[in-house]
């Protein structure tokens, strides 16, 4: 099962990375036009689901991180974001919180509070319980949410 998935992943990985590069350019231009909300929406839209490849996840994380750090008005951003992206955003917030970098953590904590008020505890629980999109190593190793 791992072998077959490996072949499929290799083809998809290149395609996904190309898509992420396109997204990066689009997001840079949106940020230059002072539209951080659209930038974040674009970053979250193309999140590759069910990808095991670390490079795709890291590449996507870099893009989302850039968009998150550019957000100044959190309330406005959350009111214009579709509810379907709340779960994805929450997962990226936890990834941001696990980095330990002070400005990232400050921003992520700010957004986390407002997002919890909006989306509720269910959103957090879905992050904790998600096995499909998140890496889970078998055996006795700990599992990290930050691999989304």
């Amino acid at each position, binding site marked *: 099962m791992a072998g077959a998935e490996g072949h499929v992943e290799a083809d998809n990985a290149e395609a996904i990375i190309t898509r992420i590069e396109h997204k990066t350019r689009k997001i840079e231009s949106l940020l230059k036009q002072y539209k951080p909300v659209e930038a974040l929406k674009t970053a979250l839209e193309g999140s590759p689901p069910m990808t095991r490849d670390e490079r795709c996840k890291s590449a996507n994380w870099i893009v989302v991180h850039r968009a998150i750090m550019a957000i100044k008005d959190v309330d406005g951003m959350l009111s214009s974001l579709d509810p379907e992206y709340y779960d994805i955003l929450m997962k990226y917030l936890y990834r941001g919180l696990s980095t330990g*970098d002070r400005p990232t953590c400050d921003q992520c*904590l700010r957004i986390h509070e407002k997002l919890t008020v909006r989306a509720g*505890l269910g959103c957090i629980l879905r992050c*904790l319980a998600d096995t499909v999109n998140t890496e*889970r190593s*078998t055996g006795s190793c700990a599992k*990290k949410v930050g691999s989304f």
Partner: protein
Amino acid sequence: MASTLRLYLTCIRNTLEAAMCLQNFPCQEVERHNKPEIEMKTSPELLLNSVLICRNEAEKCLIETSINSLRISLKVKQADELENILTKKFLRFLSMRAEAFQVLRRKPVQGYDISFLITNYHCEEMQKHKLIDFIVQFMEDIDKEISELKMSVNTRGRLVATEFLKQFI
């Protein structure tokens, strides 16, 4: 500074409220045994994703959940060597008396200063929101305690040195 602390504690409180969904689950491997699955980590299907919440480079909180138990590990801010020693001694003092706290773990998880282990039995005997209040209050008080200890050590050192050196005047 105070606002990041408030946000950090709010984040931890929300995450704990979501993660503290524990139920009784007898051990799958050994019959008639009931173990906290987060400590055994033998079956991946019983574990949830662990979450690391960092306030900055020095302070972080690791929350790991399983079906019948929850482990919270804290790393407390230590600005200098003296705080390092004080924190270690103080938290070791508390950990040794873990029986009195019930939810405290005798040894902190590797890389952290103190750990809590909450099982489904604790949730049955005690109220969930009070347990969470306890953890958050603990985090607030730890910082105050360490600062007080540091101040008292410095004051005592100063007094002792003054008295000792008076004989040389």
